[in-house]
């Protein structure tokens, strides 16, 4: 038992082995897709509505090999990343500003909540009027989704700053701007990253839904076409492909998070 232990480990939580995790992940995947495949084959699930994992995999392979999907994927990702970037910047800035300036927060608080409750997908036609049928409207839709998730977490994160640490920095004559940069922002970092995991998904939702409503390229367009011709396989293939791409982006975010938050005790 005492053979090969890492430098210092807290007693009760044993780090699960990589292989076990991988095995369980694969097992879970096999279980779900296996059930699905079996269900669709035996007719318990109507393949018309649910397709079949084997068909979906085949379709994805076909798209990738033929190169058909790449331009669409690139368009969607461009839109999603633009929405993500804009949403983060505006959300963090608004969160910092409102958390710091009490009057601003008090005044805009109800308006922000109202906007957050607006079903933005329904407003998509108006966004199309404003931002046109190109990437603009998809990015705008994504931003309206990402913004609020990031905003609320940043706002709360700033308020969670340890008052003693804050006072210490103030006594050391930090200017407002320095407080922001050296105290509030690092302190809110864990909060902001938590919101990024949620909002990367929403950035993509914005792009895909925007394309779904009106576009001539992008994954949303592909899915919309497939849905129009009752091609469930195509719908699933498009969605799953996108999700996998987002997973990769999310892993990159996590790597960044691990680097930026390296100062915290590992639990």
């Amino acid at each position, binding site marked *: 038992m*005492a053979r090969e*232990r*890492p*430098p*210092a*480990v*807290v*007693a*009760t939580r044993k780090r699960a082995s990589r292989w076990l995790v991988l095995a369980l992940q694969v097992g879970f995947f096999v279980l779900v897709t296996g059930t699905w495949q079996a269900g669709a084959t035996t007719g318990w699930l109507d393949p018309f509505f649910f397709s079949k994992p084997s068909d979906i995999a085949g379709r994805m392979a076909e798209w990738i090999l033929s190169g058909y999907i790449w331009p669409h994927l690139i368009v969607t990702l461009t839109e999603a990343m633009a929405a993500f970037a804009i949403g983060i910047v505006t959300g963090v800035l608004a969160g910092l500003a409102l958390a710091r300036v009490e009057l601003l927060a008090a005044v805009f608080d109800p308006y922000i909540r109202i906007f957050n409750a607006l079903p933005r997908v329904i407003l998509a036609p108006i966004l199309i009027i404003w931002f046109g049928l190109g990437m603009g409207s998809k990015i705008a839709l994504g931003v309206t989704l990402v913004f609020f998730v990031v905003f609320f977490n940043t706002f709360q994160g700033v308020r969670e700053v340890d008052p003693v640490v804050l006072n210490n920095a103030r006594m050391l004559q930090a200017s407002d701007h320095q407080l922001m940069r050296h105290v509030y922002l690092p302190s809110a970092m864990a909060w902001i990253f938590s919101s990024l995991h949620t909002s990367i998904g929403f950035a993509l939702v914005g792009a895909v839904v925007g394309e779904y409503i009106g576009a001539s390229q992008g994954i949303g367009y592909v899915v919309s076409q497939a849905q129009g011709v009752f091609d469930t396989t195509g719908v699933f293939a498009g969605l799953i492909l996108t999700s996998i791409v987002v997973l990769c982006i999310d892993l990159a975010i996590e790597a960044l998070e691990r680097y930026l938050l*390296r100062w915290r005790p590992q639990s």
Partner: protein
Amino acid sequence: MAVPAENTPAAPASAPPAIAFEGVTIRFATPSGEIHTVMSEVDLAVEEGTFVALVGPSGCGKSTLLNAAAGLLFPPAGTVRVFGETLTGINPHAAYLFQQDALLPWRTVLDNVCLGLTFRKVPKARAAAEARRWLKRVGLAAFEDRFPHQLSGGMRKRVAIAQAWIVNPRLLLMDEPFGALDVQTRQIMENELLELWQETRKTVLFITHDLEEAIALADRVVVLSTGPARIKGDYAIDLKRPRDVAEIRLDPAFNALYKRIWADLRDEVLKQEEGAHGA
């Protein structure tokens, strides 16, 4: 006391020690990727019912040793035994008074003191009554409905003391419990601790920076050396019991002990200072 006492009277000499470190080595990874060995092959056994004080220079590894005794740290080499059994998780016989603030910020003073009893499923009313008794002992009866952030530093420490003592453990781990208290309050708390220990013959492992305090309270003073920590000295304190912490300091034997241990300790600290300054 309302709480069922877990403790037994002083065990026969053949009984296993209350706590035994056997070749305990602890390392941490430093940010630059090196391995920092905080303590290397430490052996230390504490017989049941004894009061042991740990002294040593700042940063030498005292808290780390206590963490290992509590089962919060899992040493990569060596074993920690508690009443003969190898520790693999949280030490179930110990109460731990942390060096840092460790009160639950979302519970009032009263609820914080009750905590251990609540976890042991003692009925609410009985737990509250017991907690009030303890709050009186630490001089905070008037503050039971405050939240921790509404207390001063010394008051928080006293709440933590009540929180640890109320569960009446067999083994008490205390990390600089009285450092934040003013002299008078400190003497009161020290006497309370001695009384508690005498009554129930707990085993106590006590970290302090105050050598006088260590000698006044303990049966045995262990001096830790600096990086990597080793046991530098181990002194039996054969002063009369029961003691009063204020009076015992006037005992000439006290002074002799003080000088001996101090000489030892001073070496250690100077060595560390040099090391640090030289680095």
